[in-house]
């Protein structure tokens, strides 16, 4: 049995009707990801309220848990949380038959358990009880019998709170979690025999059960000569003179022990403490840090869940990454995924729901196991729910790594194809007063492949039913069509060589002349359509590539300088030349190109030739360009408004899409004075 659907109404940030929260879950592991305050903990708390947890802490409904539609508005009257369980085993169906709901789907009858939990606010003025006792209803409409306490106890979840204090949970003490766990461990209860006072000493103390050993020790304490003598002295020297003749006071010294087996076992287990050792040498007292203790804690809880023979095994972990370093996080996640696949003796599989802020964890999970929580809504990323195709899922499983997984925790996502965009766009955005950090934009560099695949993570298959993911996503991509004169300038063709006709030529590059009438616009539309719609938008370079378009639109001088610096990078690092000299030389060369260029296209192509023909690194040039622009703005030679006018429109639009729109239109590019032939 597993929870297949969670519906929450009027609880904390979740509203009602179309603002209610609906999350569908698959069996096994589900990770809830999303930025802070998205509602991840509210989901976990809702589950805790309905199912209850095995630890001693009880979560109670507080009046502030009732949803407030707007600040100052009256709070909702009742919270409704509805859980649908599916995949019931025969034992589940037997144990819960009076509460079941049967759904006839395609001629076969599916069994589900639907629990509707309702908490009402006490509207009565002046009552100290602010929330009325909650109800557990069953049935599709909540019209079935109320769920009895005994049945509810079958459903209790194991809950691991965030920033848990594992050391305390594992240490000795009254009501310690370790003692609870051990007490329910089969091996502790069933191994060995009890201690029999008549068989003293026992034939083989090693054969005694844990409780038997405890009882034997207690018995030995009572027999100890030291204790006997102390008691004798107490009785004879002190109590006897204080007693009346007919009412003799006698002392008895022994270990306090409850008559009930289970109680005595608990008292014994509470004396135990779990500690990790550094090596196989179990005697090593070297203590481990918070992280390791946390792992140990989780291992114990899993041990207990896996060993149980009845009930519904649900494990809720908030932030399993707490205190763990990245490699440990990955190991933990794989371990949890393995555990969730195992079938218990009673046919149940453990269902695990975690909340996480860790890109490490998120990157290690299949998208099928992820649910994005955003603005009080849940978006399962499993197949069929997103616009991703099966091949996209396989691709993303291979390539969605830690550096890219931060897209699950962003308020906006900018997906780029190369290092240059990755370096430049955040700087440009900052200079335009659209700081990506401030706007919570995460930039994902996909390195040339699968731009649209990453973007489609954010597109819903059925946005009308599921709603849209309210995270703006901008994909920035090149047009990859060069102006007609460029092949000779950037060295694709020798002077005088004609453009090879395709086919038979297999040339990959394209010039504008390859496209007739509106074919060029079709190419643009096709590229845009790969990932556009809902909150996702693809921005295609107006002309060719980012560098060319920057030069084309008015930053030619800076791009030329940056490319020249990139070419001189080794010499600059070796200090055999200085930036000022490189820039002076670059400016002189640039002046000559400007003077000779008949139009902006030729100028741009010549600037771009530094990358294409001379081999300047785009990444290094981007770094220099970023520095040059920052310096220019810092020195007051360039302001945000003017800069915007000199940028390619598609880059500005992409930045606006993931941050905030610009109010005033950009000024016309001042451009470089171009000599018109």
């Amino acid at each position, binding site marked *: 049995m597993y929870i297949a659907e969670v519906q929450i109404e009027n609880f904390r940030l979740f509203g009602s009707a179309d603002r209610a929260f609906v999350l569908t879950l698959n069996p096994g592991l589900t990770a809830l990801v999303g930025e802070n305050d998205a509602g991840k903990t509210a989901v976990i708390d809702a589950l805790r309220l309905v199912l209850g947890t095995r630890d001693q802490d009880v979560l109670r409904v507080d009046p502030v848990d009732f949803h407030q539609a707007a600040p100052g508005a009256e709070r909702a009257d009742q919270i409704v949380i509805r859980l649908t369980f599916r995949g019931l085993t025969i034992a589940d169906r037997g144990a819960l038959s009076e509460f079941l709901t049967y759904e006839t789907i395609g001629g076969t009858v*599916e069994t589900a358990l639907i629990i509707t939990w309702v908490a009402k606010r006490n509207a009565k003025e002046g009552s100290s009880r602010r929330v009325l006792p909650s109800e557990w209803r069953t049935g599709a409409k909540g019209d*079935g019998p109320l769920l009895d306490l005994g049945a509810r106890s079958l459903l209790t979840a194991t809950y691991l709170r965030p920033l848990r204090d594992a050391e305390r949970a594992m240490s000795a003490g009254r009501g310690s979690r370790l003692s609870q766990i051990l007490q329910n461990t089969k091996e502790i209860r069933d191994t060995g025999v009890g201690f029999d006072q008549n068989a003293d000493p026992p034939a083989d103390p090693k054969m005694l059960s844990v409780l038997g050993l405890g009882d034997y020790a207690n018995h030995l304490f009572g027999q100890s000569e030291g204790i006997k003598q102390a008691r004798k002295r107490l009785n004879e020297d002190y109590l006897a003179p204080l007693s009346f003749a007919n009412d003799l006071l006698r002392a008895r010294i022994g270990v306090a022990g409850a008559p009930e087996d289970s109680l005595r076992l608990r008292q014994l287990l509470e004396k135990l403490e779990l500690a990790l050792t550094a090596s196989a040498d179990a005697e090593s007292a070297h203590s481990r840090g918070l992280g390791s203790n946390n792992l140990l804690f989780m291992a114990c809880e899993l041990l207990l869940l896996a060993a149980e023979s009845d*009930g519904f095994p649900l494990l809720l972990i908030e932030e399993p990454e707490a205190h763990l370093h990245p490699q440990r996080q990955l190991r933990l996640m794989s371990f949890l995924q393995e555990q969730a696949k195992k079938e218990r003796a009673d046919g149940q599989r453990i269902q695990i729901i975690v909340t996480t802020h860790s890109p490490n964890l998120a990157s290690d999970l299949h998208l099928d196991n992820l649910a994005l929580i955003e603005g009080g809504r849940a978006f399962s990323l499993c197949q069929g729910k997103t616009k991703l195709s099966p091949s996209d899922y396989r691709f993303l499983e291979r390539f969605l790594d830690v550096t890219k997984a931060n897209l699950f925790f962003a308020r906006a996502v900018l997906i780029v194809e190369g290092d240059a965009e990755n370096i430049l766009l955040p700087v440009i955005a900052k200079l335009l007063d659209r700081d990506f950090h401030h706007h919570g934009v995460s930039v994902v560099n996909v390195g040339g492949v699968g731009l649209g695949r990453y973007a489609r993570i954010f597109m819903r298959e059925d946005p009308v039913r599921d709603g849209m993911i309210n995270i703006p996503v901008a994909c920035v991509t090149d047009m990859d069509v060069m102006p007609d004169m460029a092949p000779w300038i950037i060295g694709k063709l020798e002077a005088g060589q004609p453009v090879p006709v395709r086919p038979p030529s297999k040339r990959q590059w394209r010039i504008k002349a390859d496209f007739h009438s509106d074919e060029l616009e079709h190419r643009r539309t096709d590229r845009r359509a790969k990932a556009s719609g809902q909150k996702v938008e693809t921005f295609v370079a107006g002309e060719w590539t980012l560098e060319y378009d920057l030069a084309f639109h008015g930053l030619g001088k800076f791009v030329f300088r940056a490319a020249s610096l990139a070419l001189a990078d080794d010499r600059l690092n070796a200090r055999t030349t200085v930036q000022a000299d490189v820039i002076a030389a670059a400016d002189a060369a640039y002046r000559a190109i400007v003077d000779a260029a008949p139009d902006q296209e030729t100028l741009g192509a010549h600037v771009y030739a530094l990358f294409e023909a001379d081999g300047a690194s785009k990444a290094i040039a981007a770094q220099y360009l970023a520095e040059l622009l920052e310096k220019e703005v810092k020195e007051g030679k360039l302001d945000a408004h003017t800069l915007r006018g000199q940028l390619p429109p598609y880059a500005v639009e992409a930045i606006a899409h993931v941050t905030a729109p610009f109010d005033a239109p950009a000024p016309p590019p001042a451009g470089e004075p171009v000599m018109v032939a």
Partner: protein
Amino acid sequence: MFDDLIREQDVVWASALMGLGPGGFAPVDGDDSRLKAMLNLDTVDFEACPGSGKTTLLVAKLAVLAMRWPHRQQGICVLSHTNAARNEISTKLSNSAAGIALTRYPHFVGTIHSFVNEYLALPWLRSKGIEVRRVDTQIALMKRWGMLSNTTRWTVQQSGLEETALIYTQPDYTGGNKGKFGPHTATYQALVAASRAGSEQGYFCFDEMFVWANQLLESPSF
């Protein structure tokens, strides 16, 4: 699975609980048949004359079983033709924890009708979207009878039938004693329509709950 669920010291406790004093099941003159009966956990048939204490024995055993019950997902199911056992439990055990436990999850005490209703028919009907208001033959038939036109009622009565013609034995509301009326007659169809309408409003005859329970048990994949 019942090993050791009833121990000798429990018999004394149960006897006192039933108001028989500590020795209610103790051997008398070397006859320990009552004690044996109490300790027996095999399938067994007790026969005795009225008033000899069969129900008392049953309830005493149940009290011990409920007290010692180790399972969370399985319960004790007590089925009887009448509510005698249930009444006995509520009078004799109402003050004990065992008595209260017996009436709650996961145990069941009641008639075969109420068992079928609770665990099969009612969840199944609820799942069909039918809100079951009353399971009572008299009320259900009265409702259905009222839905028939005067002409139909007259026709039915003329052929020697009465309200019971509205009881169905199939989940498509057919079956039962419809007298001379064949499935194609208007009267037959009017009877079926009234049975359907009355059922969809939530009024059922006692035996019809078996029809629905049966439909659930025979449904594919159950």
